[in-house]
């Protein structure tokens, strides 16, 4: 397993948020964490990245304990794409170069510059290289942020709602790009998301959190409508359409029983 999370407990001001949470991801897999608002999805990502230290639990990346690593070592193992990314007056190339920070010495090396150029070309973003972030659309900015996390050369990519506030085309492009990168490189990706249909389409594994615990986890093909109903309280049908699984709510109106 490239990433293994065990027995994570987190509490805010005495209120438990995550209780004994565990998960594993292997190389080449995309795992999506799902659940209602405020259930602790982002908290779990922040624990994996050691931005937040849990009360108990371990996070192992490539068999090494994240909580025993320095901040630089963590950044070389885990690439993080935050939910909010600010766009300053800086070119996409320089913004992606920032992702090399955990590897940088005093000077930027030729290897760093070649890696940034290689990542931009690999993601089809070379036309954006000299554009400033503050002139970009939300979709372009998000792609640049993913490129920045990739040049950290991490084992695992962590993405906090990478497609929130993006239109359908950008959502498809970004998630497709992410899945392609994970398949082609020795990587795994863990992301949080609200859109069940996008999660079903682009993930290999799903993990539903309810009441601070893993309610259900497994391959997307094994997801049942009962799981969705129990987690969100909304009755749904899961249908097969043109080779993809689709979640369709049964009724428009609340209350659902």
């Amino acid at each position, binding site marked *: 397993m490239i990433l293994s999370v065990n027995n994570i407990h987190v509490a805010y001001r005495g209120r438990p948020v995550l209780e004994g949470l565990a998960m594993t991801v292997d190389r080449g897999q995309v795992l999506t964490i799902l659940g209602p608002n405020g259930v602790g999805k982002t908290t779990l990502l922040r624990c994996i*990245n050691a*931005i937040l230290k849990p009360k108990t639990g371990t996070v192992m990346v490539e068999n090494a304990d994240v909580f025993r690593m*320095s*901040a*630089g070592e*963590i*950044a070389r193992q*885990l*690439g*993080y*794409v*935050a*939910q*909010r*990314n*600010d766009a*300053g*007056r*800086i*070119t996409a*190339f*320089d*913004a992606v170069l*920032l*992702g090399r*920070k*955990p590897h*940088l010495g005093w000077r930027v090396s*030729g*290897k760093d*510059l*070649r*890696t*940034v*150029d*290689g*990542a*931009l*070309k*690999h993601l089809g973003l070379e036309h954006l*290289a*000299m554009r*400033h972030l*503050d002139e970009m659309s939300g979709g372009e900015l998000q792609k640049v*942020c993913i490129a*920045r*996390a*990739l*040049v*950290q*050369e991490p084992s695992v990519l*962590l993405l*906090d709602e990478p497609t929130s506030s993006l239109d359908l085309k950008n959502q498809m492009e970004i998630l497709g790009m992410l899945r392609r990168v994970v398949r082609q*490189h*020795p*990587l795994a990706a863990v992301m949080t998301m609200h859109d069940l249909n996008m999660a079903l389409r682009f993930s290999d594994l799903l993990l539903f959190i309810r009441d601070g615990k893993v309610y259900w986890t497994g391959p997307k093909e094994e997801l049942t409508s009962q799981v969705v109903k129990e987690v969100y309280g909304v009755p749904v049908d899961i249908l097969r359409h043109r080779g993809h699984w689709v979640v369709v709510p049964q009724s428009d109106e609340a209350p659902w029983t």
Partner: protein
Amino acid sequence: MSHFDRGQISADYRAHMGRKALFMGGLTLLVFFLLICAVSLGTVRIPAGEVIRSFLGLGQDARVEIIIRSIRLPHALAAMLAGAGLAVSGAAMQSILRNPLGSPFTLGISQAGAFGAAFAIMLLGTGTVQSTQAGVINMAYPYLTTLSAFIACMGASLVIIAIARIRGASPEVMVLSGVALGSLFSAGTMFLQYIADDVQLANMVFWAFGDVSRAGWPEVALMLVTVMAAMVFFILNRWNYNAIDAGDETARGLGVRVEWVRLWGMLVASLVTAVIVSFLGIIGFVGLICPHMVRRVIGDDHRFLLPASALAGACLLLAADTAARLMLAPRVLPVAILTAFLGAPTFLYLLIRRRGP
């Protein structure tokens, strides 16, 4: 393992870096040009060739040597260092506080310095006025006033750091603490001014006018050490500031200890500002405007923004000080009056011409 290192260094990127290097080179030349102008121009005009010969140790006219080495050069170097120190601190503070209005004075340091000076003038008896032929007011014990101003500046900074440590080093906490402390020190200064006699009041008001002509070689030496050390510190943190500009969470994901970078950055910016303010008085707008002017050309990348802001600050204060000396010659107009006059409209212009909505 390397996933993507088969790319190339594109011609576009080389050109992009070349433009930034050219801009910085141009600013460096401008600093030297303005330094020669600052030493050359004044009540007594000294030809530029004579100034350069003096810089090279080849000066022959003893009278000119005295003017250059005892008066003009220390003042010009003080202007350069103060401009560079305030501007680089401003650029760092704008990133640390994630606020375009960030400046070395955001944390109430100028008000604290004014209070410290007023306190020394009023209660420590440093406020005896001596009038010189040029109409300049001198203090009886300038170093005690300087020390008192410095202690007040650093005291204000340490209080804000303590609050930030307790409440988390968020930009909001720092800015609001600075505003509150600034008001408190202003109230203290107003109270002291209200109960001061005429001489003390004149000294308090005079001290607040930032003026590089107060600096001699000892002040220049201390400012040089402080500003250079701060420059090294800020430049070592250039990637951290770039990361913070991308967002706190992104910065943490890149291995940046955001709270520590904020606290140390604030402390160093405060120290530089405290040294400058306590020696020269309050010189506003340089720390706010120079980074904004530079950003328009060079962008937000701190690898270039920090040194370019320092160079721009040095240029601005050298030019302003030279103009201030010439405008009412033989009287010397405190440079802070000119920077405020020029700074406010420039800032408004930058605001109106700002990119985006």
